[in-house]
């Protein structure tokens, strides 16, 4: 099994992780100012997207989307998504210290288990080789191929 992500591609995975968690936290802070949205008051969602915190959150999530799509173009979906798991730690800390949400020991244990679980995936191959990709990789310049996967 070879596992050769370039530093630039690790940076893209880092961007996927950070922008998602910061964006979610900004959205949550913005929505706490907007108030509860119910099925009877769905129009509040339009108010929400004019809130500065929600707008900044959306910008962060746009950054997430760009880096996420880039990562998906050279790695499996089941590799890229779990790679974002460390973002849960960022979310937990932001939620606790900025939004002042209580986090129980059970919840901390749950977050820890999720991070451990996705750690398994991060150690594996990031791309399932398909015939069409083999053909593409053969025509690619040496060292450009991100990852060659294989069975465990």
């Amino acid at each position, binding site marked *: 099994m070879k596992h050769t992500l370039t530093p630039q591609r690790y940076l893209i995975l880092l961007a996927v992780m950070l922008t998602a968690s910061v964006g*979610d*936290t900004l*959205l*949550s802070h913005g*929505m*706490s100012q*907007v*108030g*509860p*949205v119910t099925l009877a008051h769905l129009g*509040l*969602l339009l108010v*929400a997207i004019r809130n500065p915190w*929600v707008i900044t959150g959306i910008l962060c*999530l746009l950054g997430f*989307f760009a880096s996420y*799509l*880039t990562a*998906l*173009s*050279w790695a*499996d*979906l*089941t590799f890229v*998504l*779990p790679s*974002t798991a460390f973002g*849960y730690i960022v*979310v*937990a800390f932001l*939620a*606790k210290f900025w*939004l*002042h*949400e209580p*986090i129980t020991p*059970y*919840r901390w*244990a*749950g*977050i*820890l*288990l*999720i991070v*451990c*679980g*996705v*750690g*398994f*995936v991060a150690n*594996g*191959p990031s791309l*399932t080789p*398909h015939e069409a990709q083999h053909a*593409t990789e053969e025509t*690619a310049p040496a060292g*450009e191929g*991100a990852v060659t996967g294989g*069975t*465990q």
Partner: protein
Amino acid sequence: MIYVSHIHAGPIETWATILTVAATAVAGDVLTAGAMRRIGDLDRIRAKSGLGGAVRAVTSSPMFLLGVLSMAASFFSLLFTLSNVELSLAAPASASLTFLGNAFAAKLFLKENVDRRRWLAALFVCAGVFLLAK
């Protein structure tokens, strides 16, 4: 500033909204991942055709656009959920369920090699979600 919580959803409403976020996210992820697989390495396309070429390659894919529609549905479900459920539950729980759903969907639709390592990860995530709900 003191943060005033508006969190008030019951367990059924909490998990129904979280499941909706996850289901629409899985549809969006699988469709966009399938589209990106067809389009090919974006780094290489950008090197050859520039940023505009990469953007055109992505946005001209119907599968990608369908994926974006699903993601938009997921986003508004998330906004709805975040106004009723605590972030530290809603964000990890919906993301974990999305991860589990994606493992099944990626194997089924994208033919990804979801091996023992990835299934084991799914079990850990399940246990994590269970603990998050306590």
